[in-house]
């Protein structure tokens, strides 16, 4: 056999495979494949192709797709092939179809019929082939077509069929849980299938079901535990052994399930302690698979209700992993440590050095895992070191996906644990500078809020310092080229709000910088908008402080540019700026109070301040206001009301207050009218009307008057009036601008949003205080621990206290629920499927069931304590192959790689006969002799290509 190809393969096929195999470049490979496509297109539709030939063509199609080219021209032939009588041809057809088509492909409908037929076949291999296809090709709509047959097959005499039927049902559950929700009890039934393969497969759907709804499966805890116990005691068929471990993959699946079931459930967990402890003791820690099971045990132990003894075992294994030379084991160790420190934080202490080694390892995978661990163990005492490291690493990588993740983690940790404002600002600056465009915009908004509000302390002085620090650092950073847009928005906002607040920097300094920003990032409208608004604030504060305002020439030219901008938003802001500059100090102080971004703005919704004015106007002969509902026939209403509010105009009287004016309203106010009637609160730049300043802060007046005007006169459209529109745009838009975008809008929008965040932040602040306290007593942090190992004691106490605390309420609850349902539980345990079982049988039943799993011979061998005997033929066969192969095979031979691991594994197990295990397992002298021989042979054999594999496996 081997590389010479099968008996039925044509020379053509062999040549194709060889040429693909020998292709030295992607281009060459592509050429071969394109050629092949042409050939096949011609050949495959010829009449009367013998089926062996056709099978070969189909495999060639598989090659074409595997190498990245489209083979859709041949799909139909693959579909046809599923009809074939020959099993091999049929199965190849099914294979090709599952590789080519997804479940929504049009051709699927042609296969469903074939599948239905094949599911009824007498030949169980045909049924298996069809079930494979069912798993991959049946979608939600076609489930009913095959469901009844799949259900029947669950009881098929052949275990292979039952296993695949279970998986088909599993697939249906994944696709459409509702369509099979009444059938999930079948999974429970199949758990006690006589065949361990079926039982093992059933664990997959059960795992998923339990992950979704733990409580419905608590009754199975005893069964799972007893299955695991028997697996660990080698009572399954030897065929499931892998590297001397009894059915390790089943053990792992069971441990995963137990971890789910025992999470936060003391009673369930107590059932598991013994078996998990046994596995800890029995596991062969010298083989990869043994370590895989051990790792799963740790995951389980850290998920279930804590047990000191098991935690100790877990900690031992972790320290062995971390001390290992194998990077794989170190990786697993770091991961396991991350799980365990949640329960016993003190164990990180003893591994600091190992952790730091991993952090500095050139291997990226290991490094990332370690960062994940650090993230989990960050405290206020070590946050500086950890976040610093994280940022350094973030800067060094190019992978945007991971960069985003680590940036958001940095922000999260910084917000949660920042030791000082100064540090917080610096940290955020670094994050924004290097990953600004990758972080969520909300992070930027949060930062602005934090700077505005301070850290929630009463000390105003500290807040001022925080702001000053921010301003200083931003002025410095602005010198850097190419800053991310999000970061610039933050900078502009902060400079506008606080740039001149404490007199450290003059208005011309700040405005100069802001103009530079607007100029340097002229493609970024959002940044320009932020800069413009910031400029307005600076000037407004200057005016309010009765200082002389000299607009810088560059600022003037910027404004001129913006006044003619294509962006109405920018235009509006520019006009607004012009308007504000024209006002007097008192007016400006009203509309733009300094440091008022956190103040509530009270909106006079009744517009009561206008009453006098209206009275006066009516006396002068103006028409009274007609409510909207009464003028529904009028043409200009729809113009006048914002488009969003059509529905309002069509319904009856509106009793609620009018909303804040919309930009559309603004733009449509006839300018001349406004000027002449003097209703508009803020005059146009060229006609300053200070006398109306009192109305300025109240936005609604504008709306009211505007309505009035519009009704009276025709619509004269005029762009460019800015006045208060930003406020409205911010108040109801969700765009970025909302955040402190414009003068008064600032207030309005931030106030509402701030109230929320303030509320939500408050508890958070408290938590972090608590955490900080806890942390101080818990753990010195990775930097600190090096110096003060004494803190460890406290840590242990505190942590265990915490753990207890957190579990107390739960466990008492559980106790209650247990009491409530003691009668129900036993039957469930007994008989997985049938509720009629009696409670006395409960204890025995799982064992009985499982005894059925073993055939008599297996049981006998297990009892005799000579399990190796049945295994040895397998091993010998494998070795015979290896030994022979070494001489015949060339370098490309897989075996050279393969043999290494098997060799390395063997000495490991033989060299360390496990005392604890020896009684049950029994060292097999024959085995070890063979292994020795093999090792010697391998040792002198130069064919092993990858000496490093040894390391990998030995570790």
């Amino acid at each position: 056999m081997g590389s010479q190809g099968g008996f039925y393969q044509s020379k053509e096929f062999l040549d194709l495979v060889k040429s693909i195999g020998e292709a030295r470049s992607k281009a060459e490979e592509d050429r071969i494949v394109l050629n092949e496509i042409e050939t096949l297109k011609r050949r495959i539709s010829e009449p009367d192709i013998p089926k062996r030939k056709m099978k070969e063509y189909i495999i060639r199609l598989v090659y074409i797709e595997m190498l990245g080219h489209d083979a859709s021209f041949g799909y139909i032939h693959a579909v046809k092939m599923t009809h074939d009588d020959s099993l091999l041809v049929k199965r190849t057809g099914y294979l090709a179809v599952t590789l080519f088509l997804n479940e929504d492909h049009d051709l699927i409908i042609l296969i469903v019929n074939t599948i239905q037929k094949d599911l009824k076949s007498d030949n169980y291999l045909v049924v298996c082939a069809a079930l494979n296809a069912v798993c991959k090709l049946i979608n939600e709509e076609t489930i009913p077509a095959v469901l009844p047959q799949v259900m029947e097959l669950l009881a098929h005499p052949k275990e292979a069929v039952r296993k695949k039927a279970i998986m088909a049902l599993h697939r249906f559950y994944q696709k459409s849980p509702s369509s099979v929700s009444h059938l999930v009890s079948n999974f429970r039934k199949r758990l006690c299938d006589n065949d361990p393969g079926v039982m093992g497969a059933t664990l997959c759907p059960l795992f998923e079901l339990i992950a979704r709804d733990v409580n419905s499966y608590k009754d199975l805890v005893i069964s799972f535990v007893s299955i695991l116990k028997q697996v660990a005691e080698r009572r399954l068929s030897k065929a499931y052994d892998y590297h001397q471990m009894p059915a390790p993959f089943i053990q792992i699946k069971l441990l995963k399930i137990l971890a789910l079931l025992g999470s936060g459930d003391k009673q369930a967990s107590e059932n598991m302690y013994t078996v998990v402890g046994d596995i800890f003791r029995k596991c062969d820690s010298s083989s990869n698979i043994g370590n895989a099971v051990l790792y799963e045990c740790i995951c389980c132990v850290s998920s279930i209700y804590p047990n000191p003894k098991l935690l100790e075992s877990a900690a031992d294994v972790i320290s062995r992993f971390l001390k290992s030379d194998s990077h794989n084991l170190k990786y697993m160790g770091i991961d396991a440590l991350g799980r365990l420190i949640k329960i016993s934080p003190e164990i990180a202490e003893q591994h600091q050095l190992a952790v730091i080694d991993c952090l500095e390892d050139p291997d990226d995978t290991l490094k990332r895992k370690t960062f994940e661990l650090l993230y989990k163990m960050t405290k206020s005492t070590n946050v500086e070191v950890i976040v610093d490291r994280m940022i350094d690493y973030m800067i060094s990588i190019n992978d945007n996906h991971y960069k985003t993740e680590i940036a958001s983690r940095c922000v999260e940790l910084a917000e949660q644990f920042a030791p000082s404002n100064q540090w917080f600002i610096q940290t955020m600056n670094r994050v924004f500078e290097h990953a600004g465009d990758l972080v969520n915009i909300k992070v930027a908004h949060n930062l602005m809020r934090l700077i505005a509000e301070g850290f929630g302390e009463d000390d105003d002085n500290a807040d001022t310092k925080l702001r000053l620090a921010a301003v200083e650092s931003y002025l410095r950073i602005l010198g850097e080229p190419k800053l991310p847009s999000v970061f610039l928005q933050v900078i502009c906002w902060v400079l506008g709000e606080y740039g001149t607040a404490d007199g450290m920097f003059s208005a011309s300094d700040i405005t100069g910088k802001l103009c530079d920003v607007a100029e340097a990032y002229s493609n970024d409208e959002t940044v320009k908008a932020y800069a413009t608004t910031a400029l307005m604030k600076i000037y407004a504060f200057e005016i309010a402080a009765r200082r002389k305002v000299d607009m810088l020439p560059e600022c003037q030219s910027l404004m001129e540019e913006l006044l003619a901008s294509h962006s109405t938003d920018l235009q509006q802001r520019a006009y607004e700026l012009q308007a504000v500059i024209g006002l007097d100090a008192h007016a400006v102080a009203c509309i733009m109070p300094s440091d008022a971004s956190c103040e509530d703005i009270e909106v006079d919704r009744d517009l009561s301040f206008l009453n006098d004015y209206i009275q006066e106007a009516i006396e002068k002969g103006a028409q009274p206001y007609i409510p909207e509902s009464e003028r529904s026939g009028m043409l200009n209403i729809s113009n006048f009301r914002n488009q969003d509010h059509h529905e309002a105009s069509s319904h009856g009287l509106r009793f609620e207050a009018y909303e804040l004016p919309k930009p559309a309203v603004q733009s449509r106010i006839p300018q001349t009218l406004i000027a002449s009637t003097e209703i508009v609160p803020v005059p146009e730049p060229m006609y300053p009307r200070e006398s109306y300043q009192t109305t300025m802060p109240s936005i609604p007046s504008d709306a009211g008057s505007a309505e009035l005007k519009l009704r009276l006169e025709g619509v004269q459209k005029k762009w460019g009036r800015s006045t208060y529109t930003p406020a409205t745009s911010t108040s109801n838009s969700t765009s970025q601008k909302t955040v402190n975008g414009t003068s008064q809008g600032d207030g309005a929008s931030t106030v509402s949003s701030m109230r929320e965040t303030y509320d939500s932040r408050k508890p958070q602040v408290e938590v972090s205080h608590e955490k900080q306290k806890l942390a101080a007593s818990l753990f010195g942090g990775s930097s600190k621990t090096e110096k003060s190992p004494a803190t460890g004691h406290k840590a242990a106490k505190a942590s265990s206290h915490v753990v207890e605390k957190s579990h107390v309420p739960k466990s008492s609850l559980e106790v209650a629920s247990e009491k409530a349902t003691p009668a129900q539980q036993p039957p469930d345990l007994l008989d997985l499927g049938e509720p009629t079982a009696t409670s006395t049988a409960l204890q025995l039943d799982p064992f009985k069931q499982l005894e059925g799993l073993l055939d008599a011979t297996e049981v006998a061998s297990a009892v005799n304590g000579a399990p190796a005997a049945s295994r040895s033929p397998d091993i010998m066969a494998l070795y015979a192959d290896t030994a022979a192969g070494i001489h015949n095979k060339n370098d490309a031979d897989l075996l050279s790689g393969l043999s290494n691991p098997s060799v390395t594994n063997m000495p490991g197990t033989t060299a360390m006969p496990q005392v604890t295990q020896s009684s049950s397992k029994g060292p097999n002298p024959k085995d070890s002799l063979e292994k020795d021989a093999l090792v010697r042979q391998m040792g002198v054999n130069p064919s092993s290509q990858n000496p490093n594999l040894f390391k990998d496996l030995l570790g």
Partner: protein
Amino acid sequence: MGIRFILMVNKQGQTRLAQYYEWLTLEERRALEGEIVRKCLARNEQQCSFVEHRNYKIVYRRYASLFFLVGVDNDENELAILEFIHLLVETMDRHFGNVCELDIMFHLEKAHFMLEEMVMNGSIVETSKANILSPIQLMDKAS
């Protein structure tokens, strides 16, 4: 889901077998294979056999000229997947006898059949070599 895909790629980065357990278009497969193969092939023997990629992990193992790459969800036990790869190789070895890259190329469908027995719906369902190989042997006999 667990296992998302299984790839066999030689050290030149050419795909020798690809099985996906979630549907990807041809373009997506090509892009993904290119990306992860580049990532994995660049690593040396001392480094971990695991690579994080986007929101999942790749566990890989090299046998002579052939790389076995398995894409798994983040909560999967990496060491177990590493041993699963080895089990697959041992199984192929038992069937082909000293399996090599060309064996897989000439008997692509058989390698797929083995995978079909071992993994369904992205979960490992069979680990007994005898059970994995028996349908294939029966088919060989029949034809």
